[in-house]
């Protein structure tokens, strides 16, 4: 039976607050499946209150300074424990020239949730929680992002597109955790956009869509389209993309591609929206995001 307690944490656990990534790897190699890595805690603590997860060990990333930093060197390298608010401020305030090309990222951060949650929740946490509705996932998919995964014995970098397995499930093994997310710096003639439909701004997406377009004159040189809350994992609309790349851009093409995206998604009906509604609005937000991304190409 699902517990509805949200007042106290019944479950008992040991709390670990390491200060280096190597300590995290050590702890995970010791405790494996009985441990859970915690970044902001905004998803994990709710799951623990509801007794959907009962880790015997909680390993906090909060005191690991390097996982809270963003560096720019050919790519944006974002520490997994970077708060959504800090990421938003980095992109929109500190690097406005980047912000125009990565408008989808700043928009997804801005529409993420309440300001309080944006201060707490992290990029790594949003990805590792692997909600099909995660707002940052479609954006990062359209940016060709990669994630660096570490364990005690190995470190590897994989495309984000290979990271999600199902609702709440990723390719992470019991001894592994995410240290960094990399976003290749987009070329000058790149534009992006993000659209989200939810009951109110602070709410979880009913559908969201991210688009990146690389423009060559009037032609779409390259593009990515990804949607959230429309499939068991964040979804890359490949058929829609194929109909877009190499074509002359215009409102009719955006309409056509939006339609294709709405047809290839696999939405379910749940408490937030029906499948039919998701399909209807997916068309609208993909079309609108395409128009916006094209405008943002500069």
């Amino acid at each position: 039976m699902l517990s509805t307690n949200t007042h106290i944490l019944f479950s008992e656990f040991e709390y670990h607050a390491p200060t280096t990534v190597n300590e995290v790897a050590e702890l995970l190699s010791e405790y494996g499946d009985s441990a859970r890595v915690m970044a902001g805690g905004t998803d994990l603590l709710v799951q623990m209150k509801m007794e959907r997860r009962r880790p015997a060990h909680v390993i906090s990333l909060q005191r690991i300074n390097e996982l809270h930093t963003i560096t720019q060197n050919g790519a944006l390298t974002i520490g997994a424990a970077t708060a959504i608010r800090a990421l938003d401020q980095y992109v929109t305030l500190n690097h406005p020239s980047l912000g125009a090309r990565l408008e989808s990222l700043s928009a997804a951060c801005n529409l993420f949730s309440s300001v309080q949650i944006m201060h707490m929740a992290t990029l790594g946490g949003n990805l590792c929680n692997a909600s099909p509705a995660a707002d940052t996932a479609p954006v990062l998919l359209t940016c060709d992002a990669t994630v660096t995964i570490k364990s005690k014995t190995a470190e590897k970098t994989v495309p984000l597109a290979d990271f999600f397995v199902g609702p709440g499930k990723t390719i992470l093994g019991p001894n592994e955790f995410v240290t960094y997310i990399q976003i290749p710096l987009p070329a000058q003639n790149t534009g992006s956009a993000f659209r989200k439909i939810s009951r109110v701004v602070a709410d979880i997406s009913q559908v969201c869509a991210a688009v990146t377009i690389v423009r060559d004159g009037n032609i779409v040189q390259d593009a990515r389209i990804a949607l959230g809350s429309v499939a068991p994992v964040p979804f890359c609309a490949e058929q829609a993309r194929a109909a877009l790349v190499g074509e002359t851009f215009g409102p009719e093409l955006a309409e056509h591609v939006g339609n294709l995206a709405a047809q290839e998604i696999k939405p379910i009906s749940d408490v937030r929206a029906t499948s039919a509604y998701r399909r209807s609005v997916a068309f609208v937000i993909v079309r609108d995001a395409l128009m916006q991304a094209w405008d943002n190409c500069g």
Partner: protein
Amino acid sequence: MQPKSITVYLNHEPREWRVHPNDLLLNVLREHEALTGTKYGCGIGECGACTVHIDGEPVLSCLTLAIACEDKSILTIEGLARDGKLDAVQTAFLDHSAFQCGFCTSDMILMTRALLNEIPNPTEEQVRDYLRGNLCRCTGYASIVRAALGAATQEANAIGAADA
């Protein structure tokens, strides 16, 4: 599950807490410190009633482990007035009667304080956007927004008077 002794800076004063890993900050504030201005609303990060400032940032105390607050500065509504003098935001909420039942007042005031620390002269749209995670079930938002804008004006005037 062993309790741990930690030091926090609560409302500008150092405090020693003995906390278990599963103690939530909200419950420590309300039950151990008897600071009941911070409210339990939904417990899942939807309502904003449990908002406090940690190291100057507005966060949710119902989704914060107390043990994670070691060496951090925590500000609750009880610590906002200094030396018996209300904060400008508190005064503005009084002036604009920006509460009905009062349940969301602590979180609305702390959130407005955080907003004005970040954006001293916000537009109405910025106020509404910043307070989007704070629910008022009396739906007294109009007066809350007026109070936030009033506090900003009052602080700008106070700075202007100090400069003159």
